[in-house]
């Protein structure tokens, strides 16, 4: 169970190491160059430039309709950009090691939890091995008692945890998340945020999290970027040690600053 207590058991030195690696700043893994995309001649993304390091946690903010989901869908290979290019470790980017976690869990209602999770593993794998792995990962998201249930028996938070388990079992290099927790109640969301932070620290993938929630972005991300009018207008590093406390003063100040900036755009 990912309780409030277990969140405190994260190893802080592990994070500090990561922070040190990141602070060198020349470790770019994923490079987005002038990504542009229009729908029906209406430009949505007008030239996104973004460089992301390996194992970085980037939060993407922006007002509704600014193209956040479109950017994620491009990263997930679900949409092709009209122009611009993406490089991964200097080579042309392939989306096959990227997993997208959508706002809805998108589980297959006709498969039980175990089968929903093993779906992400190659079909040719040994069945026993797949089931063992799925079982372990469902244990991690605290659903080991329901492995044989159908998704319709689960609550929203539980479903989203299965979706997370399914994304994790396929060992992604990049986890792209589109407001994955926005439909959850505050307490469940809090637990999910900590679960995400924990698995991110343990597994070393890159996270790109689209969110509406400035607090969530500051709580989790190494860097927050803001999309406005189809380009990135803010790119703010959040250099706070982890684990971060929701009600910490400095975090609150930062949250207020960011909110002010966001409100300014919306007013303009």
């Amino acid at each position, binding site marked *: 169970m990912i309780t409030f207590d277990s969140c405190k058991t994260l190893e802080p030195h592990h994070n500090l190491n990561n922070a040190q690696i990141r602070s060198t700043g020349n470790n770019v893994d994923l490079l987005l160059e002038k990504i542009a995309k229009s729908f029906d001649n209406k430009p949505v993304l007008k030239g996104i430039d973004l460089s992301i390091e390996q194992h970085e946690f980037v939060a993407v903010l922006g007002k509704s309709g600014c193209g956040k989901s479109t950017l994620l869908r491009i990263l997930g290979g679900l949409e092709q950009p009209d122009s611009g290019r993406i490089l991964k470790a200097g080579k042309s980017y392939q989306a096959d090691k990227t997993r997208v976690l959508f706002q809805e869990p998108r589980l297959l209602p*006709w498969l039980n939890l175990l089968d929903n999770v093993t*779906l992400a593993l190659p079909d040719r794998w040994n069945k026993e091995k797949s089931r063992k792995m799925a079982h372990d990962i469902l244990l991690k998201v605290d659903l080991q008692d329901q492995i044989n249930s*159908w998704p319709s028996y689960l609550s929203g938070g539980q479903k989203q945890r299965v979706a997370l388990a399914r994304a994790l079992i*396929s060992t992604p290099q990049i986890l792209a998340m589109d407001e994955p927790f926005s439909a959850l109640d505050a307490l469940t969301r809090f637990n999910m945020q900590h679960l995400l932070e924990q698995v991110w620290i343990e597994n070393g993938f890159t996270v790109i999290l689209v969110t509406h929630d400035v607090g969530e972005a500051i709580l989790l991300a190494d860097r927050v970027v803001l999309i406005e009018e189809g380009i990135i207008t803010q790119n703010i590093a959040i250099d706070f040690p982890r684990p971060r406390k929701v009600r910490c003063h400095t975090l609150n100040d930062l949250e207020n600053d960011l909110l002010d900036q966001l409100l300014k755009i919306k007013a303009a």
Partner: protein
Amino acid sequence: MTLLSIFYRNRAGWFLPAGILFLWEIAVYTNFISMRFMPSPSSVALAAMQKILSGELFIAICISATRAFSGLLIGGLSGFGLGVLNGISHNFRAYTDTTLQMIRNIPHVALIPLVIIWFGINENAKIFLVALGVFFPIYANTLLGIQSVDPHLLEMGFVYRLSRFQQFFKIMIPGALPSILIGLRYALGVMWLTLIIAETISTSAGLGYMTMQAREFLRIDIVVLIICIYALLGKLADSIVRFFERRLLAWHPSFQLERVS
């Protein structure tokens, strides 16, 4: 769940038919209804006994059921195949769907004169008519089912790099299954109806033939018996599909509610 327990669960529903049978028996017995127009339930039961013991009924049912299910197999499989093909391939649908929708508007029993010219009055004629009748409900519902598979799930399949084979068998077919089974149940109704009409018009064996003979010999009890047999066969086929529905769609929220209640 045994047949008996189903019967017991619906016991309230059986009062009315039992009462009607009882009143009917009395009405015939007291000559309120003439034996010439309507046989009494007991005489129908007696006719059933005779026909069962002589083995005639069993053979007739086998012959008719073989026709029905051959037609269902041929029409159903081709309807399913075309439905899947048109559901998956936009191009294929663009070329074939309009044609199919036009043919669909012809009532298939209207083709009986043509069918007799083409096939004569042998088995093929009846199987052809049944196949034609069941084709459209299964085609239309399969197509609808495949088209209404949640595109979000297909997108998920893409993100997880499922093979086309997996996309088809793990997402499309299960997603379309509720609709396909509805089509199948509807097709079964069409199947019996078509068979009855086809058998009544031209035949030399089977249930329809038995009815026509009984009519010539004014054995009205046998006529009513066979009407009842048709009803029973229809009900049986429907129950089988419902059984599969409950097994295959157990994941479906509406079937879970049914189980709880």
